[in-house]
């Protein structure tokens, strides 16, 4: 509270008195100074798990195919064309004339080595589910490969657009993750000139970047990325002109920064979806929540529009299906829509035998005020919620232990634009599954084991209809990310929450 007041006061003071000399100075040095809150412990793409790691990867390395950030269509990058030889085999033609930052030529050997290395469990790549679908990769000739999946894997192309980048085989075989994390070599538009691990990364535009791929030559010459863990410090640096770009700015701070003449603020919707999950399978000891009428009552009791308007802001939207609207298979039309209706909620509770309410443990880790808003709505219909607010990992542990009758969580799907990156995780029978609905599990398995789009859509629609009818989840809203940056920067945010620094230039 105090620190917000303080930041507000200084932002106000600056809005009135200050004109920006320092931001212009960095534009004249053609250097974009970026702040990240979370450290990337190891910039090797396969040995970190945070989003900033993906951002780094996209600057330094390339994927075989890429995603058009506006249309979300798959477009060529290091692969120029591809076809499905059968439902497990993907054949790809590779681009010629591409070089790595160290002069190594890119060819099929790099693809074969990279994919076989990362899919080998002995190499302990951290995000196994990104790579474990690969059975083996074969070289067909110098610029042609065959990728074989263990089972039909329709989302293969999606997984090849973001998380799987190509490494130089000779270099990586020699140095491994340790050295790659200190001296990264890739084909991307930026090369790394200096790394102080977890602290500061300095990148320079690479003049040898190949033409014709999904990424143009970078416009800005230098990028310096610093890890500044405290958001208030980042905001102070923005105000003082010490940095040029920051993200994940809290909504109330974003409001104030908008009034500073030297800065711009963008509030962009992301693919991250927030949802309330319920125990519908008797895993916890809360009998009330097992009753579908109680879950439906809760769905009707919460005014999602009000929460979005007052707490989230920006381009966040209410969602009805348990997925992000652009994801393949996310059929909003079959989802049961729960409108805000406290009277109906009370009636449903009475029908279920809980006219006098019941006690409910509610687990959450996102901003406390969001959880408290939700609790307010529950209290209004007679339920007695008790907030268990803890860190993400702690909530996740409790979730897996099966002790969370109601929880507010979110999922970014790793920016994969296919429901197979979300639904099977939570309704496919794992410890994350609180529905344990055999039909849903069957439909999800069917949707994930064929490349026939029509069959996939049908199965996923059935699953979504059942999940929403029985209120296994109450999908809440899409998350918004707030960006704050110098007005000299020509910046565009994208829905997949992956700023592409090589696309931005100075105004």
């Amino acid at each position, binding site marked *: 509270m105090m620190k917000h007041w303080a930041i507000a006061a200084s932002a106000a003071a600056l809005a009135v008195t200050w004109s920006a000399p320092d931001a212009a100075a960095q534009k004249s040095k053609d250097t974009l100074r970026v702040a990240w809150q979370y450290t990337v412990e190891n910039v090797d793409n396969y040995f970190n798990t945070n989003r900033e790691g993906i951002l780094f990867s996209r600057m330094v390395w390339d994927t075989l195919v890429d995603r058009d950030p506006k249309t979300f269509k798959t477009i060529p990058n290091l692969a120029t064309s591809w076809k499905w030889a059968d439902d497990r085999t993907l054949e790809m033609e590779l681009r010629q004339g591409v070089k790595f930052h160290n002069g190594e030529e890119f060819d099929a050997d790099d693809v074969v080595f990279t994919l076989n290395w990362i899919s080998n469990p002995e190499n302990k790549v951290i*995000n196994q589910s990104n790579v474990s679908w690969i059975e083996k990769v074969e070289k067909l000739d110098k610029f042609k490969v065959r990728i074989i999946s263990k089972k039909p894997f329709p989302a293969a192309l999606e997984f090849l657009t973001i998380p799987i980048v190509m490494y130089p085989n000779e270099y990586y075989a020699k140095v491994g993750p340790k050295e790659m994390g200190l001296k990264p070599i890739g084909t991307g538009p930026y090369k790394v000139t200096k790394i102080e691990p977890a602290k500061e990364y300095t990148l320079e535009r690479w003049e040898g970047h190949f033409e014709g791929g999904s990424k143009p030559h970078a416009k800005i010459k230098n990028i310096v990325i610093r890890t500044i863990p405290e958001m208030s410090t980042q905001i102070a640096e923005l105000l003082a002109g010490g940095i040029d770009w920051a993200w994940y700015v809290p909504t109330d701070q974003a409001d104030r920064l908008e009034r500073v003449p030297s800065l711009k603020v963008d509030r962009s919707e992301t693919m991250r979806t927030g949802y309330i999950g319920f125990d519908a399978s008797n895993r916890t000891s809360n009998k009330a929540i097992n009753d579908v009428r109680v879950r439906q009552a809760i769905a009707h009791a919460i005014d999602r529009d009000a929460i979005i308007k007052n707490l989230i802001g920006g381009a966040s939207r209410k969602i009805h299906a348990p997925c992000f609207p652009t994801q393949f298979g996310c059929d909003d039309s079959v989802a049961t829509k729960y409108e805000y209706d406290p009277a109906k909620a009370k009636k449903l509770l009475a029908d279920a035998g809980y006219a006098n309410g019941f006690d409910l443990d509610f687990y959450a880790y996102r901003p406390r005020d969001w959880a408290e808003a939700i609790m307010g709505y529950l209290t209004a219909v007679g339920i007695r919620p008790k907030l268990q607010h803890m860190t993400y990992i702690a909530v996740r542990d409790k979730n*897996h232990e099966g002790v969370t009758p109601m929880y507010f969580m979110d999922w970014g799907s790793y920016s994969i634009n296919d429901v197979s990156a979300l639904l099977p995780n939570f309704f496919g029978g794992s410890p994350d599954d609180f529905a344990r609905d055999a039909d849903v599990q069957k439909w999800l398995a069917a949707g994930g084991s064929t490349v026939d789009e029509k069959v996939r859509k049908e199965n996923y629609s059935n699953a979504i209809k059942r999940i929403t009818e029985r209120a296994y989840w109450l999908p809440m809203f899409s998350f918004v990310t707030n960006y704050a940056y110098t007005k000299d920067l020509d910046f565009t945010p994208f829905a997949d929450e992956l700023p592409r620094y090589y696309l931005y230039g100075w105004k």
Partner: protein
Amino acid sequence: MLSYAFKRLLLALLVVLTVSGITFTLTNAAIDPAKALAGESATMADIEAIRKAYGFDRSYLVQYFDWLGGALTGELGESYRMRRPVSVLLLERLPVTMTLGVCALSFALLLSIPLGVVAALKPNSPVDRLALSLSVLGQALPTFWFALMMIILFGVILRWLPISGSDTWLHFVMPSVALGYYATPAFMRLTRAGMIEVLASDYIRTARAKGLRPASVLFKHALRNAVIPVVSLAAVQFGFMLGGSVVIETIFALHGVGFLAWESISRSDIPVVQAIVLLISLFYIVLTLLADLLNAYLDPRIRVA
């Protein structure tokens, strides 16, 4: 003297072992390292694969002794998240924390000793009250808030000082003040009390009677004896500053041992957490031991007590 030192050393080692054992158990009991390492998007299969690969499925005792055996030979293991030797990480981060600690301590002493002397010269006067208030403010102000206030005033509005990072000596000014101000009251009160006692003693009356200059009486004869307890407190406070700099390092983006500890705890990077706890408890214990020995050396009365 020697047997005193030896006994204290043995006790110190026992404390270090106990602290590291308790930390290990609590860290592993609180959070599953396989889940923390696997990250947000990991599936159960990912987590189990990691659990086996990194040996997290062995018993706590086996894991702890495995680690201890290595630590005794200087082999502190490898960071789960950074895949680099823990000893290298610590050596990289230590200079920043040491610099911050030394600067913070220097600031605290430079502020508190003069304040204490001034207060002692005129006890219970307005000057004394002002000096006391100034120093107590240091302990009352929440460090986090004080640091942010300084950032806003000196970094954003006046632009006199850089806000974050550790590139130049200027970067350490605000962090040192924020960290050091907290220790000021203790030093100041000790100096004041010591000076009041010493100034009332016979040998000072003798010195004055001999016609020595007031400055000489104050600094050469009085202060030198009055600050003996301050020196030993300084040693202990230095340990506190080295171990308690997490908040300051995080706010000012100083990548020292404190910040590394915070990151490693939140990501359950157990080898790093263990090593840092060991390092900081060693610091505390060595510094406390040094303080005791220094006291005993400076004041022979303590040795025979």
